[in-house]
């Protein structure tokens, strides 16, 4: 049976945890920085997975790159620039603010502002008293009748 499993593993992509023994950097501060970075990078050959979580060889390759760069003392920004020039902008899960992405980044806050204006206007208009047209005698009579017989307790 063992050979069967072995055979199967040859053809099957195993969805497994991405960490491999011996991959991690020895300095815990550097390692945690590298991990944070990896969680913001996309595994380009996978479907919506991060470099940190993916088992694909591509992800392992980029993990090695990121760790090398972190160990070499590069800043996060330098590493991201390096990776996006090498693999394209799509590797960044956090798109950079630019000409083609300002709607993406500012859109939600513009909508919030717009919505806030609408809410303020509707609250203000809800405060206004309805126009005070005096009741006609007919209406006053109706009102008296209603009050006399007791209205809906809800009112």
């Amino acid at each position, binding site marked *: *049976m*063992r050979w*069967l*499993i072995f055979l*199967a*593993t040859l*053809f*099957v*992509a*195993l*969805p*497994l*945890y*991405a*960490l*491999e*023994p011996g*991959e*991690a950097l020895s300095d815990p501060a550097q390692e*945690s920085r590298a991990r944070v970075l990896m*969680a*913001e990078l*996309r595994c380009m050959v996978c*479907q*919506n*997975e*991060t470099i940190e*979580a993916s088992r694909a060889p591509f992800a392992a390759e980029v993990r090695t790159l990121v760790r090398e760069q972190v160990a070499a003392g590069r800043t996060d920004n330098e590493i991201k620039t390096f990776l996006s020039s090498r693999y*394209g*902008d*799509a*590797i*960044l*899960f*956090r*798109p950079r603010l630019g000409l*083609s*992405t300002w*709607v*993406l*980044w500012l*859109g*939600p806050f513009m*909508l*919030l502002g717009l*919505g*806030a204006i609408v*809410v303020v206007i*509707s*609250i*203000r208009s*809800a*405060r*206004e*008293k*309805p126009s005070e047209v005096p009741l006609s005698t007919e209406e006053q009579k109706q009102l008296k009748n209603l009050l006399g017989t007791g209205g809906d*307790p*809800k009112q």
Partner: protein
Amino acid sequence: MIPELGHFALVLAFALALVQVLASFAGVSTKNDRLANMAAPAALAQFICVGTAFVVLTISFLSSDFSLNLVADNSHTAKPWLYKLSGVWGNHEGSMLLWVLILAGFGAMVAYGTRSLPQDLKNRALCVQGLVGLVFLAFVLFTSNPFLRLDPAPFEGLGLNPVLQDPALAFHPPLLYVGYVGLSVAFAFAVAALWRGEVNAAWARFVRPWILLSWSALTIGIALGSWWAYYELGWGGWWFWDPVENASLMPWFVATALLHSAIVTERREGLKAWTVFLAMTAFAFSLLGTFLVRSGVLTSVHAFANDPARGVFILAILAVTVGGSFALFAWRAPLLKSDAIFAPISRESALLFNNLLLTVCAATVLIGTLYPLVLEAITGEIISVGPPYFNSTVLPLAIPLLLAVPFGPLLAWKRGDMRGVTQRLMLVAFITIGVMILTFVLTRSSPGFAFLGIGLGTWMVLGSAKDLIDRVKLARLPFATSLRRAAGLPRAAYGTGLAHAGLGIMIIGISGAGSLHDDHVAVLAAGQSLNLGGYELQLDTTGLYEGPNYYSEYGDFTVSQNNRVVDQLRAERRIYPAEGQATTEVGMHATLWGDFYVILGEEQDNGSGWAVTAAIHPLVRWIWFGALFMCFGGLLSMSDSRFRIGAPRGAKARQTGNTAS
């Protein structure tokens, strides 16, 4: 022969849906009641037909009838019966049939489950429901027919994707669909109201239980999906901002907003047009979610249907539904005047604030999900929008909303007393600060801001409790009196409290699991151990065994804490030969305070042992406990007596009901 019966029933259902739409439309337009009243029996007959088709498909799956193309592609004789059953909706065609079944079921419930619903409103709503059913039946029959035969029939089926062979995932799609499709009822009532040109408190009271049902089902359906991802995908993640997850989150945000705005319509006859608008938007988001998942336009693990014809069909449904209903809205909404008057500090204003943030959250998820698609279509530029984007846009929107949650139920309608409410929440605020300090001290070794999130969650849980405590006047009146008040409190009050507290519990879980997790990977041979977070994990043995439809490599582990054995775990890697795929089965030592999570990796080439990963996910279970609370709260509100339409309402119920939310 039996599958043909199902096929025939489905065609008949299509014809009945057509009758339902035409008869009710003609009847309502010409004020011919006998014609219009045909809608209800047609809806019931349609449900019976779709039900027959569904039962037939289920029988075909359970009996492994591989002469059906769908069964041959998605089932296997060696599968346990539960997964033969869930295989019915574990594929595109079957899941669309389930969609239509739930739709027809809700149609029948509107027709016969709500006796005191005004006949005219019912007929109009059934007309709209029938139209939705008609369109989706056409979709199933013409692009996704589950009853297509295969000749010659194969001896064995291809099987079901093994990651989908899981109890949580067996019930994840039906629950999500109850949520999505339940919103179609709210949509039908919204369009019917526009058609009539009238929205009143009674209308909101008819719609509210449906919104609550959809919301509860969506909540628990999304949570099940997340729970499944946590233990099945094998790296301990529980939310990925995957486009398909977003597709269910968007209708959830809008349904949550709708749930709250409908309260204003019901209690104060306010926000009428807005509530109608939200009801239509919520269903539009359901359709959008169906489109995104079913058309395969997204590159994501869930998009297993890659047929552009289907995509175009659903897109057409979406365009017509959204275009048609919003055009109707633009035309008729001016008829829906709300003359509710309220002060800037009032429950109405608080609910407006809630609606503003929730709809902007939904819009943000929409922008982030569709942006890469649109950008690529327009400029050819390829970008990825992932978790960092959503975390840094949705969280800042959510935090003020969550902070405000305890204030809402304490504020009075029309004119609230902010200073009074703040005073009532003083004690809660002090306890919250205490909890934050305690958390900060306990977690100071790990980076991150867990204490802020845990504080926020605590604030919400205690704030919700405070509302209930105040309402029964606990400790201010004799205990027996408080108890009597507690019994008299409407269920909706408990529902609100539970749902809000559940959200707080979930926030605590998200904060703990999101910023306090830790992991460690090592190569272990039998007898060796690793240490993580105060736990010692020892690999005892490894071995192989054969399951019903898979082979497994497993490792048995002992978990100890302070030299005391606390648990024995098994972690596996399973190979499914029929499907040619593998899954991981993680080992978990679960406690209320966190999970100790073990993943068996590969055997090392040099024979030094196995790669073993241990991870700690603090408070992670609170996420799903919270969701359970929320779902239960929603269902409790739904069972409130004031929604039991036609039930006699006592004077007492009316009084307490008046202050309820």
